[in-house]
């Protein structure tokens, strides 16, 4: 890990556009994949009466309380080309899962899962059985009822979940450091670039990137809360 750290092209000052772009790409891909993976899990959690439900809920919430380094450490072990997951990945893609962008995506999905699944689960649960039963009694199949009734009802949940997942992935640091290292264009995301700037006493760059992340996070949250309020008003009094 030391080699790429030293070899990293330290920007003279200010923003590193490559790292910024990579960060946004990682966040966008992670969010898109989590939307697909998280929806069925959240739906199941919101409706199941199975005994394993609390166990699954605990697993989903785990990344909230675990230090990212713990997650990163285990992922490193699993993704190693000698371990089953890592070997499988190497055989299928011809590339290692560690120190690669793909590895970052997989780890980010796990790491950001609670930010997607929990709001969706709450949104699905709050629909209650009423509207879905009503759709069923109008001859809508379960899948039809999901898309035409559950999804529109859960729209606010999707807004919250999408934005939180995206923003949280943008802010990811510990996991990336553990499994991705600092390969420009591959795993060097903006939080890593910021870390390195501070380490090398390049405070001008650090200021630029820190301020950008701060403003970005604030603007995103402000947009969510504004949209959420508009949305609430539209549903109450369309």
């Amino acid at each position, binding site marked *: 890990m030391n080699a790429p750290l030293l070899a990293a092209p330290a920007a003279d000052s200010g923003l590193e556009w490559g790292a910024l772009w990579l960060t946004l790409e990682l966040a966008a891909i992670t969010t898109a994949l989590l939307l697909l993976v998280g929806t069925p899990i959240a739906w199941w959690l919101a409706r199941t009466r199975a005994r394993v439900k609390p166990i699954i809920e605990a697993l989903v919430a785990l990344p909230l309380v675990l230090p990212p380094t713990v997650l990163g450490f285990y992922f490193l072990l699993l993704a190693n080309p000698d371990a089953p997951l890592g070997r499988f990945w190497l055989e299928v893609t011809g590339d290692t899962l560690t120190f690669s962008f793909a590895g970052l995506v997989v780890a980010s999905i796990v790491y950001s899962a609670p930010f997607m699944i929990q709001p969706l689960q709450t949104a699905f649960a709050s629909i209650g059985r*009423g*509207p879905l*039963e*009503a*759709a*069923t*009694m*109008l*001859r*809508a*199949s*379960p899948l*039809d*009822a999901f898309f*035409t*009734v559950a999804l*529109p*009802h859960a*729209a606010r949940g999707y807004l919250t979940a999408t934005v939180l997942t995206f923003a949280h992935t943008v802010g990811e640091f510990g996991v990336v450091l553990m499994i991705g290292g600092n390969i420009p264009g591959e795993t060097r995301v903006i939080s890593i670039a910021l870390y390195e700037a501070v380490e090398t006493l390049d405070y001008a760059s650090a200021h630029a990137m820190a301020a950008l992340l701060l403003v970005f996070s604030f603007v995103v949250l402000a947009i969510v809360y504004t949209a959420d309020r508009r949305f609430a008003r539209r*549903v*109450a*009094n*369309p």
Partner: protein
Amino acid sequence: MSELHVELRGALGDFRLDVSESLPAAGITAIFGPSGAGKSTLLRGIAGLAPDLHGRIVFREQCWLDSERGIYVPPHRRGVGFVFQDARLFAFRSVLGNLRYALRRAPPGPGLGVDDVVSALDLGSLLKRATGELSGGERQRVAIARALLARPRLLLMDEPFSANDVSRRNELLPYVRALAERFDVPVLYVSHAVEEVAYLADRMVVLRRGVVHARGAVDEVLERLGGDLPDGPFEAGVLLHGMVRDHDDRYCLTSVAVGAQTLVVPRLEVPVGAAVRLRVRARDVSIAAVAPVGLSIRNVLPAEVIAVAADIEGPYAELTLLAGNMRLRARITRAALDDLAVATGSTVHALIKSVTIE
């Protein structure tokens, strides 16, 4: 034979349901009983929304459920319409959007356009509205229209007007009665209000603590059960089917023919020849041993006492009378019974103080 056969059993918490009924799949059948009797559970079972219940359901020779043979038709394939107590309109769609939702999923077939249903339920002025702006009664009318537009083969209604006050309910009930005839869909109507049942239904099933307590034609069951109805809001009496014979404009009265007899009631705003249902409560019927004179009561009919039920521990006795072919019930004190020396077979005059139009 076109019918609905339902055998449903199951425990939900402390409550057990055990029902086995065959109902003709036509007209309006009321499921009647106090709250907690299992009416809604039965309805949900028929719709397929209560997977904890097992048994057998056959509708028009089509099996929806047979737990022994492992048959279970999922609710959306049963072709059942359901009007819920709480309307359950889709909040993110307009009134028209709600109706279209049903229309798009209806099986192809003739008739029953949006216009028919919209006009039958007077929804014309509401179509553009958001569901959040509707009053309780309007919501239920939209819910009924929506259910009909999915072209159900059986319509289930679970106390649809229980959240409305009495006067609003009286405005809504005629819609339901008209629909069952006009759109030719059999209706199961859950209610705990005897007035609703008497007004709407042809037949009724009385549920009590999860089992069927009585069944049959509404007037027979109501008469038979009398004061013995499960939750007691009902008063003993009879339900009469009559036809408007003429109106007396001078005194604002209407004569209604009931069999060979005629009852005079305050003017009804319905045309001559229209069918009406009248209810005569036992406490509104007095008897006189001889033809009374100088009396303000207009409806006095000679009648024969065909049954006497005296409550030894209470003050009252209930008589069943036959005036021509019209049955009446009268509630008098036991003291009066003894004074007048009335017994089964006595000929008396029934004095009807008031008649309710259902």
